[in-house]
């Protein structure tokens, strides 16, 4: 029996300056699944993720998160989702603990569970010794961890991460990847990345966007059946460009 759907998007479109930047993208995500969103720069990955999380209203299409319609029941739908955008939304003048408490309250974590949620998020992101630090004084890697912590503090059913390892050193990348694997055990994860080895090692399924259109959807195993993911990705995108 297949696992329940946590997120489904149907025929998403988004226009900017009368140009379609996302054109009829549909995708589904099941509980415990890690989905990789691949594509070249400007393919529409970040725009798609913004639409899936309610940060950007789509011009067309329908999104359901945990069976709640994002347009009609936005509060219920957004309570099920945690989002780390490309630029982590951090208040640089706040201490880590204060910011994470604010993020937890915003996501309706009950007061009685707040301390536990804070401790767990910090432990998962390796921030135990940084609670009192001001966010603006932290290195980029630790700011990224705080960004991930705010996305998972309310234990959402769907975690959306937009290029979570960009700009990090190798040790930090390893830690974040371990965390994403761990998240994949309890939640559904959508991960946008340029790093194909990252998608290969973390994702159960991948989809590829090109010029706003979905050009491939399949399991990581299928994609790498005839070689590595990099070759497969380049082949798929080249074929699509040639046929366009």
């Amino acid at each position, binding site marked *: 029996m297949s696992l329940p759907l946590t997120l489904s998007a149907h025929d998403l479109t988004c226009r900017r300056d009368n140009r379609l930047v996302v054109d009829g993208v549909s995708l589904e995500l099941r509980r415990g699944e890690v989905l990789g969103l691949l594509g070249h720069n400007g393919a529409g990955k970040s725009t798609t993720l*913004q639409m899936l999380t309610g940060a950007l209203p789509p011009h067309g299409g329908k999104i359901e998160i945990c069976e709640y319609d994002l347009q009609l029941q*936005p*509060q219920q739908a957004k309570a099920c*989702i945690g989002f780390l955008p490309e630029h982590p*939304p951090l208040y640089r003048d706040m201490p880590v603990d204060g910011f994470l408490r604010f*993020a937890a*309250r915003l996501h309706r974590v009950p007061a009685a569970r707040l301390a536990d949620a804070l401790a767990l998020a910090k432990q998962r992101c390796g921030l135990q010794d940084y609670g009192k630090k001001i966010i603006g004084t932290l290195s980029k890697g630790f700011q990224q961890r705080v960004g991930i912590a705010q996305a998972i503090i309310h234990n959402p059913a769907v975690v959306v991460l937009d290029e979570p390892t960009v700009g990090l050193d190798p040790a930090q990348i390893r830690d974040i990847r371990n965390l994403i694997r761990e998240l994949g055990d309890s939640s559904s994860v959508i991960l946008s990345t340029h790093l194909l080895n990252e998608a290969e090692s973390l994702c159960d399924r991948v989809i590829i966007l090109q010029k706003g259109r979905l050009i491939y959807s399949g399991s990581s195993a299928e994609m790498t059946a005839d070689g590595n993911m990099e070759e497969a990705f380049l082949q798929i995108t080249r074929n699509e460009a040639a046929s366009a």
Partner: protein
Amino acid sequence: MIRTIARKEFRSLFAAPSTWLMLAVMQFLFAWFYFGRMDDYLQVQAQLAQLDNAPGATISVAAPLCSVLALMLMMLIPLFTMRLIAEERRNQTWVLLLTAPVTATQIVLGKFLGLLLLLVFIVAGCAAMLSTLLLGTHADIGLMLSNLLGVLLLAASYAALGLYFSALNKQPIIAAISSLGMSFGLWLLELSASDNRSFLRAISPNAHFQNLNMGLVNSADLIYFALVIATLLWLTVRQLNDERRHTA
């Protein structure tokens, strides 16, 4: 949820060094005007004593000071309100609120109340300074309270106006200049009004403040301020909802 956002805004405003600098400069200017006004009053006090129904210290010192305070707040509030939404957009922290399960109404009320709390703190500081009048004279407490109420209502109106311009703009400085320009324009409306029953006077918040400044607590003025604040907050909520629906 409104309380969560209000508390965060109040703390963020208070944590910013620029807030402390602005408060320090404001208190210094207020104290300067206070001593200047007091000095003027003491010089003419002997002549005033010979008059029937001579104006007391409260109407001669406290009321003009509250007018000065209202003017200072008009110039100061846009610097606070520009941070509330426009700066969040520029710093890309706005997405945290957009993707959280909160409504535009909760965001707007939370941010407005957070700033209002800071304004209450500022007005309380000035009220504490004015209360030193009680040490040397029988001050008119009613007049003082009506003045403080007027300052607070006027400040709340400017805060709601600034919040609206903050929602309209992506650049904080443009939001601040627009809000200041509009506040200044409304203030000039009152000056340019030809008579007391002029329409221009009726729509100027300053004209309604002047009644409270004279100790006249009139329900029409209170309703005016309530309507202005509610309308501007409603427009801000509408603006944010429009953006969420892609109709902006």
